[in-house]
């Protein structure tokens, strides 16, 4: 109940903030003079009056200490007097009504008599004063707070003070205050300068009024609420909601006036400016929690509602900006529309689709243009350039956003997989690499690697990767065998990059080829040592390259009859090789070989660099003067068709080593040839190799066939792998799993997969489920 001990006055006054030096200790009045209610209340009212005066004279003086302690004592006494003279209840009640009177009498009218900005000023001032007033009153009546309110579960004193303000003043003027605030904000948005400090003070009232509620439970047993969010209830309900609506309306109007006349970049600049302003506005005089909601309204009105209209603007919209490569504007577009929720019709997604369409258009145009060209040497480079352009677009203005990375890939996948007439892009990319590998010498080191990376990028968009691999393999073979490769390192580098993309199995043949070349060098060195150590000599230098079957493309094995001198080399090497290895058989491929013959012409000797076949033909003339076509055919065992090709190069082309009789343009079966002693040339050494390095129509066909065959096997292997693991599977699922497995290499057609399944059924690897037509079972 009441405190048993009367605490000394200073112990109570000190916590109330009185500086110690001003403390005057008053002796406790322990006399038995009881304070009557009205007299005591009048006394208390003195304090109210005093402070009111102080407020009205703008706080020129401070509240007198003596009065303070006197009133404190009075309150104390009135609360501790024994019943029926205990006035605690009454005091508390009058404390409340005291506020009501004050507020109704002077505060409310003062505000109501003003208008507009002046009214807001008054409102803010009165709130400031009221807080001080509440504080002061609390100091005077503080005894009630400490020992009364808990006992009766009443609202603490400060809370009462604030609550009264809310009920009497705030609720009466809030609508006018709100309109005042909103109209100032609208003015500021229209471009006028307004008093930001005033707005801040007024807005704060809404926040602070809400502050007291969660801090002071209003009913017995009520828990202290969630201070954080409940604190803003008044602010949200009485101000923010309306602010958001007004904002929405304002920007709806404004954007409607812009959208018809402004270009897309102009509009975006304006929108960006407005958004920055709003952020600034919140920081200046709104509660920070409003920022997100406020910006959402603005973004909705300024950006979301007009997105399609903006993007679709004919001359200045998204497509136009892409066409004209306006990086700055696109950057702004990305930044702005990134704010919107990510849906298929709003925000970055529709923009990314426009980008995708654009890239596809540009790409398809390139494809169409290229189809009209006679040769396609430049296509790969143009693709690279195109990719560079759009990669820069994705990385720059679109900040490497994954959405745009995705559409870049999708777009390129569309046109990179279009054939150029009869030629596939796979082939053209491979030929491009071929050129680089052959001429690499004239580029600086890092440059080649960069180009290779870009090619691998394009390669990754191909769905027929195995087609590329097959062309590449054929061309690599030619480079290696004709010694056209500028740099072994570059060759390895590209193969490593491909391996990284597609796995070791993809590049195993290519790597095997490179290894063969190295091993052949070693073998050749050993062969030289072997020759040096032996008794006989070959009479010429002989270099042999040994190829592992399976890595290399299939070459026709010859039946050509070599002249004795060459046969000796072949036999010697064969003996040497078979002595060094076991279980290996050599098959000779002379149509890839070259020979250097010394031609003893009348004028001067000239070295002829020719193919082995041509050498076989020419060396016949060491034995006889004259041969007919038929003779040569039977001696060399070459087919007529091939022979005529070679004879043409030797007798009817640039260098006529043989003289043909008759002098017709065609090689006839009965034509006769003699050695042309009279032949001469400026140079001492001429190259006459017949070997073709461009991809012929036949090669295209054979490559396609090889790829188709390999695909059939790959599909079957995949089907068996899947079925072995799962034992049973329905048809559509099997088709889709196989497709997924093979996707890295090529896109298998469902029809092909079905054919292979049927083949496997008839070969009894699989069977159909007897009761379910659509399900397959693995046969172990």
């Amino acid at each position: 109940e009441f405190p048993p001990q009367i605490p000394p006055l200073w112990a109570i006054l000190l916590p109330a903030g009185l500086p110690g030096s001003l403390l005057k200790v008053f002796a406790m009045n322990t006399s038995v003079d009881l304070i009557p209610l009205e007299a005591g209340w009048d006394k208390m009212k003195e304090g109210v009056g005093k402070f009111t005066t102080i407020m009205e004279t703008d706080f020129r003086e401070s509240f007198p200490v003596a009065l303070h302690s006197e009133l404190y004592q009075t309150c104390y006494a009135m609360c501790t007097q024994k019943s029926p003279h205990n006035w605690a209840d009454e005091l508390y009640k009058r404390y409340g009504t005291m506020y009501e009177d004050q507020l109704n009498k002077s505060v409310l009218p003062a505000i109501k008599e003003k208008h507009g900005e002046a009214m807001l000023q008054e409102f803010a001032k009165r709130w400031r004063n009221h807080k001080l007033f509440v504080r002061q009153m609390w100091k005077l009546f503080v005894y009630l707070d400490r020992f009364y309110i808990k006992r009766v579960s009443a609202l603490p004193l400060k809370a009462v003070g604030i609550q009264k303000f809310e009920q009497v003043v705030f609720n009466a003027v809030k609508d006018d205050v709100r309109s005042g605030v909103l109209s100032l904000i609208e003015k500021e948005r229209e471009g006028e300068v307004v008093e930001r400090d005033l707005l801040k003070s007024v807005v704060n009232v809404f926040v602070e009024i809400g502050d007291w509620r969660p801090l002071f439970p209003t009913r017995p047993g009520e828990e202290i609420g969630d201070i954080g969010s409940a604190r803003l209830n008044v602010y949200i309900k009485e101000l923010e909601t309306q602010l958001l609506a007004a904002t929405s309306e304002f920007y709806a109007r404004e954007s409607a006036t812009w959208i018809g006349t402004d270009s897309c970049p102009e509009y975006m600049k304006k929108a960006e400016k407005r958004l920055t302003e709003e952020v600034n506005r919140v920081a200046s005089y709104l509660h920070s929690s409003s920022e997100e909601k406020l910006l959402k309204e603005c973004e909705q009105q300024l950006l979301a509602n007009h997105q399609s209209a903006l993007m679709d603007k004919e001359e200045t919209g998204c497509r136009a900006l892409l066409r004209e490569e306006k990086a700055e504007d696109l950057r702004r577009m990305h930044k702005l529309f990134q704010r919107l929720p990510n849906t298929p019709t709003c925000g970055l997604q529709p923009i990314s689709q426009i980008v995708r369409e654009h890239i596809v258009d540009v790409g398809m145009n390139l494809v169409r243009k290229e189809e009209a060209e006679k040769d396609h040497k430049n296509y790969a480079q143009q693709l690279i350039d195109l990719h560079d352009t759009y990669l820069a677009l994705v990385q720059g203005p679109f900040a490497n956003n994954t959405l745009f990375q995705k559409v870049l890939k999708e777009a390129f996948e569309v046109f990179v997989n279009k054939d150029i007439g009869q030629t596939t892009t796979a082939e053209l990319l491979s030929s491009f690499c071929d050129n680089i590998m052959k001429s690499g010498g004239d580029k600086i080191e890092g440059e080649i690697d960069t180009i290779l990376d870009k090619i691998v990028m394009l390669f990754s968009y191909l769905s027929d990767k195995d087609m590329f691999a097959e062309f590449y393999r054929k061309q690599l073979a030619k480079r290696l065998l004709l010694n056209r490769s500028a740099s072994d390192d570059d060759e390895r580098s590209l193969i490593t990059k491909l391996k990284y993309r597609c796995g070791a199995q993809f590049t195993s043949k290519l790597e095997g080829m490179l290894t063969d070349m190295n091993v052949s060098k070693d073998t050749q060195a050993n062969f030289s040592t072997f020759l040096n150590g032996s008794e006989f000599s070959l009479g010429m230098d002989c270099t042999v390259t040994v190829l592992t079957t399976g890595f290399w493309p299939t070459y026709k094995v010859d039946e050509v009859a070599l002249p004795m001198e060459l046969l000796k080399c072949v036999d010697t090497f064969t003996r040497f090789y078979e002595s060094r290895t076991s279980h290996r058989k050599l098959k000779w491929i002379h149509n890839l070989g070259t020979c250097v013959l010394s031609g003893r012409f009348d004028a001067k000797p000239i070295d002829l660099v020719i193919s082995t076949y041509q050498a076989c033909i020419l060396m016949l003339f060491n034995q006889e003067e004259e041969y007919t076509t038929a003779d040569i055919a039977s001696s060399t065992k070459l087919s007529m068709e091939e022979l005529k090709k070679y004879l043409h190069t030797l007798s009817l082309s640039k260098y006529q080593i043989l003289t043909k009789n008759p002098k017709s343009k065609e090689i006839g079966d009965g034509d006769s040839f003699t050695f042309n002693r009279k032949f001469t040339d400026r140079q001492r050494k001429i190259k006459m190799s017949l070997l073709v390095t461009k991809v012929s129509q036949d090669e295209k066909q054979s490559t396609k066939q090889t790829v188709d065959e390999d695909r059939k096997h790959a599909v079957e292997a995949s089907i068996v792998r899947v079925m072995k693991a799962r034992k049973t599977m329905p048809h559509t699922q099997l088709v889709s799993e196989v497709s997924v497995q093979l996707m890295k290499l090529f896109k298998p057609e469902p029809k092909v997969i079905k054919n292979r399944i049927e083949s496997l059924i008839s070969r009894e690897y699989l069977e159909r489920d007897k009761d379910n037509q659509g399900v397959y079972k693995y046969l172990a």
Partner: protein
Amino acid sequence: FVTMPLKDLFSRGKKDKAAPAGGAPAAAASKPSAADPIMALFERYKEPEEDRIGPEGVLSLCSDMKIEATDVKVLILAWQLNAQTQGYFTRNEWKQGLTDLRADSPAVMLGRLDAQERQLRENTRSSAFKDFYRFAFRFSRSPGQKALEIETVKALLPIVFVASHAHLAKLLSFLDASPSVRGFTEDQWNSFLVFSHEIAEDFSNFDPEGAWPSILDDFVTHCQQ
């Protein structure tokens, strides 16, 4: 039987006279007890120098049953007996088969086979029919072959199916129009049965992405043109 011209049946029978059939060699054939009518029948029809019934015996049996050699009941009989070789019934096949059939004379056999034929005709969705249909394929193959020649397919299908089945007529005309189709695999044959049961006459519920053998895909495409 139903699939080979009669003269081939005869010439085949004569050629194979020298080779003994699977089962007990002719010399060691034991005389069945007179009380066993099934084996008595066997003795009646069997080849003189082999322990099995050959094409001539089958012809004899047919005439005793008063049916044509091309009657489907002969195929049904083969099915019942689970005969392994076209044109021949071994001793064991005969014994087991006729015991299961509960027939011991041509007249009874005729009755049973008639009943079977009716049952199969009436209920083409039964597992018995499925078994019979599949048997027909395996049985009609030339020895050592995995597939069935297309001419045989075209002859066999109308016999096994009720000739008036909607898909059947269209399939036959499709096969006539597709010279590149040389034969049917077992899978294709078996699938056609399921197809005939599941797929509507207008092919409205046919899924080209489904598990049907591609020959049936081609068939449907052909009909829809």
